[in-house]
């Protein structure tokens, strides 16, 4: 069940410069207004009943690369580029974030957010993890808290739901981490989970452009890797194109993809590839900063495979960032306890309506939805 959240005029008007305040460039410092938002949003539901989720499940639907399903033209095999790893001292930095819904409030949802930056340099992995940030989303908090708009969450065109707001909150944190990485890493390869498609309400082009710009000025290449894509060629996913290729290789599908879209509002800030980074790995969609030359792009990908571990075709830094940011069941439990202890949210088990009505016949998937 989704809670509807009405848009607040205050929130609409006060789109902040969250991504750019100078004090946020220090990765050890978290933007204060983000923390304020968390505290205030839970303060607003003090004493509320929270129907805790009985099992761990993701707060959001699977993250696709932003586009609707597209059907592309066939691509000739002669366009395949073999990938040879190239040794490099360039640092590899990966960013990932996660969200989760902790429980349903009387007037909203208790949520949490966490992000991680992992840096590979000199053969050693190091990380900075941010969060968890626990906050509530709902009519009350959304309307009354100016901070919500100050976070940099883009306004909604009409009515929206918790899932969408949560997704945008996550994007805000992710962009902050990406921007922090792009400012602090010199001559590196910055890995992002997802795509460089911008211009959607979830992904404003201006913000992605600034991240890319900042990275370019620092001599870094931004590479986005998407585990799931809706792009299809001849009724199969574009990643299937490289599924049975015996070697690491790269396929440029940029023209096929971009030709399908008008120049506005969706903007492809990255050049789109299908890539198989390791011989026995899985193929992924990869977007590389469009302003890099073809040679720089290819070299960055080769250096990525020559520097990072690409077990199963997925860079280790990004895998670690994902592991560090995701929530386990005990994290969820701890955050529920935190909300109860610090803000007096009263936790009660969520009623399983179907299970209550149908007993053992209301089990399986439907029992949890």
């Amino acid at each position, binding site marked *: 069940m989704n809670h509807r959240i009405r848009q607040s005029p205050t929130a609409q008007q006060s789109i902040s410069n969250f991504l750019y305040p100078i004090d946020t460039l220090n990765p050890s410092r978290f933007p204060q207004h983000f923390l304020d938002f968390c*505290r205030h949003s839970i303060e607003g539901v003090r004493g509320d009943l929270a129907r805790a989720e009985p099992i*761990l499940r993701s707060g959001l639907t699977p993250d696709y690369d932003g586009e609707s399903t597209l059907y592309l033209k066939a691509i000739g095999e002669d366009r395949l580029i073999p990938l040879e790893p190239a040794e490099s001292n360039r640092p590899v930095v990966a960013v990932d974030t996660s969200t989760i819904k902790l429980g349903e409030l009387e007037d909203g949802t208790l949520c949490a957010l966490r992000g991680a930056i992992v840096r590979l340099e000199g053969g050693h992995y190091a990380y900075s*993890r941010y969060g*968890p940030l626990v906050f509530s989303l709902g009519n009350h908090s959304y309307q009354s808290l100016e901070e919500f708009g100050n976070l940099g969450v883009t306004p909604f065109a009409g009515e929206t739901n918790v899932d969408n707001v949560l997704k945008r909150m996550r994007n805000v944190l992710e962009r902050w981490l990406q921007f922090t990485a792009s400012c602090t890493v010199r001559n590196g390869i910055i890995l992002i989970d997802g795509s460089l498609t911008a211009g959607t309400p979830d992904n404003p082009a201006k913000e992605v452009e600034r991240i890319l710009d900042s990275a370019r000025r620092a001599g870094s290449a931004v590479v986005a890797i998407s585990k799931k894509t809706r792009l299809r060629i001849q009724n199969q996913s574009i990643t299937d194109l490289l599924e049975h290729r015996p070697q690491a290789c790269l396929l440029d599908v940029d023209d096929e993809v971009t030709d399908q879209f008008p120049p506005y509002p969706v903007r492809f800030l990255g050049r789109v590839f299908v890539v198989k980074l390791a011989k026995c790995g899985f193929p992924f969609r990869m977007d590389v900063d469009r302003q890099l030359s073809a040679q720089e792009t290819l070299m960055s990908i080769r250096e990525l495979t020559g520097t990072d571990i690409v077990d199963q075709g997925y860079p280790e830094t990004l895998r670690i960032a994902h592991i560090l940011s995701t929530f*386990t069941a*005990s*994290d969820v439990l701890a955050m529920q*306890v935190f909300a109860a202890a610090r803000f007096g949210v009263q936790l009660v088990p969520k009623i399983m309506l179907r299970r209550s009505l149908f007993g053992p016949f209301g089990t399986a998937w439907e029992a949890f939805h």
Partner: protein
Amino acid sequence: MGGFPLKILRKEGDSIHLLCFPREEVEKGDYLLVRDGLKDRALIVQIIDIQYANIPGILEDLLRDGISEFSLSGDDVDPLQVSSQIAVLKDTRLLLGKIRGAVEQGRLSRDVAWLPSRNHSQIEVMAPTFLTETLAAEHSFELGSTRRYPHIASDLSTLDGRLNIVTGRKGTGKSHLTKLLVTSLIKEGAPVVVLDINGEYVNLGRGPDGRQMHLSPKIIALIPGLNLRFSLNQVGLSTLLGTLTHALSLPDNSARVFARIWRELEDQNQLTMSALRSAIANSDCHESIKDALQARFNTLDDSGIFTDDQHTALNLEEVFRNHHDGCALVVNMKNQYAALRRITVELLISKLTELLSFQKLKALFLFAEEAHLYLRETYWDDIVTRMRHLGFFTTFVTNQPDTIQSSIYRQADNVFLFNFSNEHDLEIVSKLAKVDAETIKMIVRDLPPHNCLVIGDIVANFPLVIRVRPLEVQTLGATRHFFEKQVLAA
């Protein structure tokens, strides 16, 4: 117990599971009171095991931590400090408890057929003194301490008329506890006999520095053949025949011949060792019987335990009469061969049984260390039936629990269990009737040295984990070492 409250998770039969947060300090053996806020009653629960609570997602957490610890370094920016809650959850423990009783209107009760409220119950640590205060304090003695409570006392009358067992693997403190019991009984005026296989009780009257202490006159060390000697008159035919047949395996037909010889000498008033030797040598029985009798006689004679001099013979009745305010006869059997041990014990027990049956002795406490080395099979049943009724109250001390018959375990009134880690040993001691096997197995395997699980009347049938108090007497039983520094055994 400040901090987080404990919570009832589950109850099944007499088992109860409690959730315990890391700040709570609870150990195996502790007693908790589960007080139902809606009723004026509480359950008495003893913790028998402590496990990690099965928190969902803990495997993923630990795997993630494992990755971080070995190949990653980094910082956690946790402005809301939620991670501390995660740490608390990871260390949340599950307490496995056994319901031992209840408290109703401030009094102990055995009515446990009710369920405390999960929501309204408060759980607090319970003082073991509350459990043992039902014991008569007439012959009070300090048994030791628990982790929280420095003085745990009991009453010696709970050993009176009882069958007791002290067992545990070597080096855990069995002898230390036995010495405490022996000295406490003597102080209360009880007659005690110690069958001392290692010669470690002989100095109970001396302080750690070797000086004689006030108990010294009450400790009578006896060495078979030296100051523990009997005359044939004292022993009597029946006792001696028993010794010959049970300790020295004399065949029945030879025993009949021996009885005839004995009666002839008795009629002639010539019951001496020298007369007995001549009578056997001159008897007109078959050569094989004569050989058998001569061989046994030589063994008895060589032992030095018989004397024809009435003045050097030990008069047990007189000894106890002279020490009517309590004493311990310590029979030092150190370095003695097996047959002599058996002869000594046969003679001694027969003589003591005789004194008790003729009311010449009110009652007697016998401490038998490693009794299987000298006690014959038929005595095991005798000890729990006939001898007990005569006033012969035995405490078995052993580090080999399988040497004590299972019937003894089932009928034991008090048991002091020190550490056992061997499954076979734990299986044997778990046959005790006074407490469930799960409690024994869970608690005993983790007991540190000098700590024991006390079960039975001596703790008002509320099993207690007790650290036995130090003794102010010289203890010779401690294991000797060649190297000064010892690696602590697990």
